[in-house]
């Protein structure tokens, strides 16, 4: 079975339920055929949700999340419980992707999303008003503008709360009563007016607890969530595969663009893994940059390298393009990071360049860049 990707070209990045509509339909059919039980409010059975994320050869469903299958199991099970699901981890560890995939599979929509920022207010979490209508008609169902949380409760769907720790703790705590009582009072519409959550409603929050400048989370809120730590991808082969698939998703199938050969991807992923872990596979120490060397960044580098090869270069992506792009894409202008990379190039890459053509290309391109 083939994956039918029904992305409309007008949208840069359609939501997961649109991108993987074919797979979701196939899983739905599989559930019906096998008679899998679907929890109340769920579009798919837990088994199908799991298969959607970690893939299934028989069903022609591609693997979308790598490296930690038990984590996926735990996440799926957490969504069935009373608590919300909190995905924590360093930036770029595919927390948001996981939350998007989970909500798309469980609820059929991944767009009920609150983006947490310092400016997020209670209105964004609860509801706000259409002020023109409010002034003319007074508070009414019509003048109420529901938040994604409110909509999710009404429709019994999964709500995503991205970067929850970027919000002030008071705003975060708005969720406490929603998650424990599963209802939202709307006193403006009368003493008994409330939005009651239907089965299927839950919250997937993502947070970056280590990042600087984030707010503390209250113990009350913590109790309402199951915590799952998403670790960076450690497996090299997996990461290469992941980058390859992401490339395809970003740039379309191999035919219409400069190919990124496997050995070039290997160089790219190796560089990222070396810098991320602070040591090479041979065990030589490497200075770790401040910038998070996530897989997502590796994909960005690969995309940029591919574009460079297509529009500026010779049509094939080599390690040289990768080297040039790493500096721009991965290094967020940190003076110190440039020095760390220079150290890496001077020591590790120079050594590898001695007897490996790919590394030689990387080295030749990288050396003048970070002088």
């Amino acid at each position: 079975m083939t994956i039918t990707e029904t992305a409309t070209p007008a949208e840069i990045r359609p939501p997961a339920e649109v991108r993987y509509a074919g797979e979701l339909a196939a899983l739905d059919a599989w559930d019906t055929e096998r008679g899998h039980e679907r929890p109340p409010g769920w579009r798919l059975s837990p088994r199908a949700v799991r298969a959607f994320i970690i893939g299934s050869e028989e069903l022609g469903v591609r693997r979308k999340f790598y490296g930690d299958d038990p984590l996926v199991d735990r996440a799926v099970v957490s969504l069935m419980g009373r608590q919300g699901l909190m995905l924590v981890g360093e930036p770029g560890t595919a927390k948001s992707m996981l939350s998007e995939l989970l909500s798309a599979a469980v609820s059929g929509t991944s767009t009920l999303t609150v983006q947490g920022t310092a400016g997020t207010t209670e209105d964004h979490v609860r509801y706000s008003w259409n002020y023109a209508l409010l002034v003319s008609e007074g508070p009414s169902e019509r003048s109420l503008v529901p938040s994604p949380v409110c909509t999710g409760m009404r429709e019994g769907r999964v709500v995503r709360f991205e970067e929850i720790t970027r919000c002030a703790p008071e705003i975060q705590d708005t969720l406490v009563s929603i998650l424990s009582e599963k209802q939202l009072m709307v006193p403006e519409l009368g003493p008994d007016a409330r939005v009651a959550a239907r089965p299927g409603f839950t919250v997937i929050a993502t947070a970056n607890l280590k990042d600087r400048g984030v707010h503390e989370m209250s113990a009350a809120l913590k109790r309402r969530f199951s915590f799952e730590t998403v670790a960076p991808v450690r497996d090299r082969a997996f990461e290469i595969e992941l980058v390859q698939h992401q490339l395809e998703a970003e740039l379309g199938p191999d035919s219409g663009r400069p190919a990124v050969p496997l050995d070039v991807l290997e160089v790219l992923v190796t560089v990222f893994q070396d810098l991320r872990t602070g040591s090479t596979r041979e065990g030589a120490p490497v200075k770790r940059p401040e910038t998070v060397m996530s897989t997502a960044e590796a994909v960005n580098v690969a995309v940029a390298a591919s574009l460079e090869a297509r529009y500026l270069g010779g049509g094939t992506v080599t390690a040289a393009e990768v080297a040039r792009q790493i500096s721009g894409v991965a290094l967020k202008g940190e003076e110190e990071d440039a020095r760390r990379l220079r150290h890496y190039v001077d020591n590790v890459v120079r050594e590898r360049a001695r007897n490996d053509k790919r590394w030689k290309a990387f080295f030749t391109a990288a050396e003048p860049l970070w002088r």
Partner: protein
Amino acid sequence: MAVSGGVAVSVGTGRRTDAVWELAPERLRAAADAVGRLRDERGIHFAPVRHHSPACAVAVRAAIEELRPAAVLIEGPEEFSRLIPDLLHEETRPPIAVLSLGGSGSSAGSGAKARDAEDEPEGAGFYPLASFSPEWVALRAGHAVGAELAFVDRPFGERSAAERALSGSAAPGPEGSGESGIENGAASGTARPDPFARTLMSERYLAHSEAIAALARRIGCRDHDEVWDQLFEARASAELADWRTVFDDVFAWSALARLDYEEGVLAGEGSLDREARMAARIAETVDRLSADRLTDGGAGPVLVVTGAFHTLALVEALSGAPEGAPVRDRQPEGGFGPTAQGEAWLVRYDHERLDGLRGYGAGMPSPGYCERLHAAHLRELRLAPESVSHPASQSASAQAGPIGARALATEILVDVARGAAGRGHGVSLPQVSAAAESAVRLAELRERSFPCRTDLLDAVRSCYVQDDGGVGGPGEPERPLGLAIAEVFGGRSLGDVPPGSASPPLVRDVRDRVRAVRLVIDDSVPRTTRLDARRTASHRAKRQVLALLDFVGAGFGQLVSGPDHVAGRGLGLITEEWQYCWTPLVEARLVELVHLGATLEAVAVARLYEAEGRLAGTGAGAAAGAGAGASSVDALARLVAQTLVIGMGWHLPRIVSLLRTTLDTDRDLSSVVSGARRLLGLWHARVELGAEEHARELLDLVSQALATAAYLVSDLGRTRAEDEDAAIGTLIDLRSLLRDAAAAGDGDQGGTGGEIRTAVVRELARLRDDGDTAPAVAGALLALGFTDGEVPDDVLVTRVRGALTAGADPGTAVRFLGGVMRAAPDLILHTPEMFDAVDDALRALQGDAFLAVLPDLRRAFTWLRPTETHRLAKRVAERTGARVDQVDVRVALSEEDLAAGLALDHELAAVLERDGLAHWVGSPGADTTRGEA
């Protein structure tokens, strides 16, 4: 058997063993047919197991109770058969292990193994048995139905010799190591230097099988352990009782792994040799039994319980299949002859070493959990536990507890929550119930009939962790939750072996002695005991046993704090604190000592003679004038201490006479002095050491040592500059010795060796007044003499002035000053005249000369305590007219501080400039930096 039908039973909905059979090639199907033939034609039933698998243990039990076999043959070195009565003894309680020490593992008629006969095998190997080990269950259940029991594997001695030959030649094995753990038994490549973890039952084959890795990926499991859980441990109790299906599936599963290995590899690491032996013994037993059957009829079948990895080979060898040739070819013409004899003992084992998760190659992870799981299965099946013949000491959990694995899951989660709460990680009741719910849902999602090990661990991770720190554990910082998990899943049980002949006499003797003084050795939890040996006789006995075991190197306990008479530390302390823990390592070390004696006492005596012999040797060297045994008085005094501490005073006369002769020959004052001090310390501790009868002798020795010291003191005068430090140290020691000796003794005599002490003092005075005495020694003697009131004020000042006078050599002067300062640092503070003398002398020094002696000078003043330095500095400041508070600035800046300060400075300047306040920074640099720092 369902095997011959091709695709075996599929219990779940697509994630069970049918996946295994889909991968099965032709060879496997043929073997499955052979299994059926062997069963029907010759009455051989195979129970392929995974070592330490609760699921297999339940199935083995069910098989034996249904089949009622005439014989149960078990994988395990055949010389262990001798121990079967002890294994069946009612007081034997798992976890235990059979310990082999290599040794003579040869049997008659062993033509095939001439190659490994030349080397004497060495090293210890463990054959662990837990309550949930299929082998253990086979023994107990087999005995219950009256079956003949035997171990049928190749003797340990041959095995270990072959393996050593292999590791020497670096032949390729499965990942460089075989099932039996060639190197230290560490499963990972990072060898764990624990020779006691070397186990005869490891599962490396499975861990490294490519086929199983592929299967793991396919059914979404993280490793081979989880594949195993998924396929077998996740079965409900009733499914496990369906032993035919279980064994068919285990057979298929491990045969697949077997096919990953080439014959050369299997031959190289000894599997084929072992299988040859097992196959031969099985055939012998079957033939003998069928002969019996002809005469009296009615004998039951034979059940073969082996690691599943070997089953395929055994089936092929016994059925005559062409693939069985490599194994059959290794069987000697006339058979292997009578059962090999070899030394092996039963020792207690513990869960920690059974735990595959902790790097030991012994099979199952989480033995504590496995034990409870097995018990829960048995309760659900209404079967009595195999080892319940020891009701008194049987742990309550085996008798009463959750019925069935589902009920167990909740109990485990509650226990983890409790353990975590006890360590400061609170887990609320809602969290526990959420975890229980989550575990059940995970099990459903993963198609398991009850929450298994990984489901429980995942539930804990989901519901008990409230931040991004994880549970902690290997590779991560330790956290309360991780410790609680380790405790509940790892278990802490320690087995018990019968008092019979199965354990070496030394081990028994030690256990009796340790128990007699009431130290707890029923589990392997480290314990602490505080002893007051001076006042309590029972504490004295305890300390003596602990010290004895420490002396022979059993690794049982160690002194954490308190007086250590041997090392001469902490002698002023009254109570001593020991930490001890009875682990299998202790037993293993004791087993290694068996050649020294059958009792702890005997071993200690042997050790004592050893030490004595060594010291006597060096003593002779000293007598020959070579100076090789310079420390022998001290070393012998140490040995005296050791002897008294371990309560073997009756060996003292020998050592004492050796010490006396050594006192005549030792030319090293420092050794004599420290030896004498040690002896005096022992005299002081005579009560708690129980050495009152030796008190007189000890004091005599001190007197003799003082006499020797008096004779040797004059040597100090000729000390070279570089040895002056040590010499002064000896002098100070000697002075305290004299003081202590004066206070010691029976009272009416006014101390020990009265006249001899006077002699020493006289010698010291002579040395002090001798102009040729090394300057530092002279300085020290002077200072000590002054402190003791032997040197009057004016003499001291005159001597100091004289030594430091303007014309004197600055180097010598500073050495002298150093001696004074070392011996009595506060002199310079309390004696104004001396302060003036030193001050004058230092002022008179020329620049170059001052610089030359500066390092020594500095060192001389370091003997002052910080407050004294402070007072001295104050006085110097007053004298020189400097401001006291300026002298008293302590600047401790490192290069980093400086760099940080500078960076801060620049930053501050930049900020001020940006804000248009540049004029605030008058002159950026030094001032600001100092302010910041």
